[in-house]
């Protein structure tokens, strides 16, 4: 089997019924998709398969042979954050961070599909992605901001000028 992962064509050695999640995490060491429930219930393992959000824990590798897979590693880097990554940082949309990868991939698909900044539409798009920390408001704020094309200075948070002496942002 072969997968094109974040633009790189990659031969796959795992068996055909291995979950895409295990292919990514265990065979390839791509750890942004998380094993939250391995039952398709939490959304933490979500990646894009040919642009569509998919639960990688329920996706047998053979069923996506030849597909293009996008994970958070394919969005941007700390030095060059993608708009979704910038917005999630700016709006404090990640707290513990464990659901964040799946949330961002579902958000990316929503935005790529021409989604609007309507909050109910965003909620619908992120339905089935469970977050226990944020209460979802900040996540929806972040997605809406990306749809509106807002840009972010990394030294300014949603709440005001950021501190730079506590680590994190350079």
């Amino acid at each position: 089997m072969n997968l094109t992962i974040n633009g790189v064509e990659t031969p796959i050695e795992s068996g055909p019924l291995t979950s895409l999640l295990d292919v990514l995490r265990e065979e390839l060491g791509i750890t942004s998709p998380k094993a939250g429930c391995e039952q398709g219930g939490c959304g933490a393992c979500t990646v894009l398969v040919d642009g569509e959000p998919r639960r990688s824990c329920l996706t047998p590798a053979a069923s996506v042979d030849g597909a293009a897979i996008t994970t958070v590693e394919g969005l941007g880097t700390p030095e060059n954050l993608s708009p979704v990554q910038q917005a999630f940082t700016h709006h404090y949309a990640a707290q513990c961070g464990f659901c964040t990868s799946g949330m961002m991939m579902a958000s990316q698909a929503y935005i790529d599909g021409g989604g609007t900044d309507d909050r109910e539409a965003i909620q619908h798009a992120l339905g089935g992605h469970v977050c226990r920390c944020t209460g979802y408001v900040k996540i929806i704020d972040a997605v809406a901001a990306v749809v509106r094309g807002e840009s972010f200075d990394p030294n300014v948070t949603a709440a005001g000028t950021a501190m730079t002496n506590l680590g994190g942002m350079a």
Partner: protein
Amino acid sequence: MKAVGARVPRYDGVAHATGRTEFVDDVRIPGTLWVKAFRSPVHSATMTNLDTSRAAAMKGVHVITWEDVPLLEYGHLSALGIPADEPLLAKDEVRYLGQPIAIVAAPSEEAAMAAVAAITADFQERPALFDVRKAFDADAPVIHQEGNWYTHFENEMDRRQIRKGNIDEAFDKADLIVQGVYRPAAIEHAPIETQVCQVVPEANGRLTIYSCTQALYFSMGVVAAHLQLPLNKLKVVGGTVGGGFGGKVDTATETMCALLAQKSGKPVKWRWTREEEFLCSSTRAPWHMEVADAVTKDGWILGRKMLTLHDSGAYSRFSPYGLTKHSFHHTGAYSIPNLEFNGYVVYTNRTPTTAMRGFGVTSVSFATETHMSRIALELGIDPFELRLKNANRIGDTSPNQIAYTDPSTVPTILAIADAVGHDLTSEYAGMTPAQRSGDLLPEHLVGQLGNPEAH
């Protein structure tokens, strides 16, 4: 002080947004064995004939039972001299569904599951106890040999009690007794990251423990005690928690993984399934709270009697600490001068319960606030005014006799009234937390006053 009043970016925000945060499950260690548990299939039973021999004979499989634990019983409160009541692995009694009995490590997840399936034991089931109200009945199922509730509060008291003022006089003088019973249910924390741990036996004889714990130093002490190792044999790597909310304060996995790493000489990893997380991990406790208040027609609360049954599940863990916090807060944000509080940590055959966001206090806040509204309803008094009248003020004392120096009840209630557009009379609208005087210092509140300067 630059950060005070400013909004700071999360120190881990960019790492989260780029998928680079290394959670415990993301640590890559070649040659790691998978860990799985053989757990009690019943709520309460005597266990005999535990047989792990078939599992242990499987290729590459390592098994531990109670016999492999140097110190079988140790608790998070043991360091305070409180006797432990929970074995790391069940020996001859099981007290909750899912209690760990034997733990295996194997070269793959599938092999570990096969090894667990090869373990057998006999269980002579007993009636289980789930209702704390029945724990004190003469014919109730017996959870622990020493009884159905925890008996190691100070001076070996079997309850946490508070006495303040003269409760009988308060109830004699009351115009009305207002009673209520409040029973918040258990809640599973449900972090998106399930319990997970990796332990690596190092060449220098140390164990490196990658832990998702919220309480790294607790876990370090607990592992060292069970294994009877000095702390310098353990290197615990933590601080990255995929959601905890209190549910990762107990040491759920580290000790058993450390024992398996020692026994196998190989790195081991245990990642609970979502099913295990729901069935076997600790929850917030359910509580049973009974409140009876002696009140006057014009809305003063002269006294409170309260009984709390704190459901600890099968083992006490941190519950005595949670109940102590609960007792200190049992008047809520209000000054009640005459008190009789009795609280018991009661054993049941539930999964052991633990901290969750305001351990012990959220339950009593729910009860006291609901009760305040009930009093207002029964007396026909504005619920905001009832709260403001009895609100903690500077110099008032808490149930455990601490004089308040900066109580926030009055400004908080005023802000709520403002936010919801609730009109107050001028007498209440202009209220401050200043020390009591005049109409706000009736006779029954004089004796409870303390000196805020004393703290």
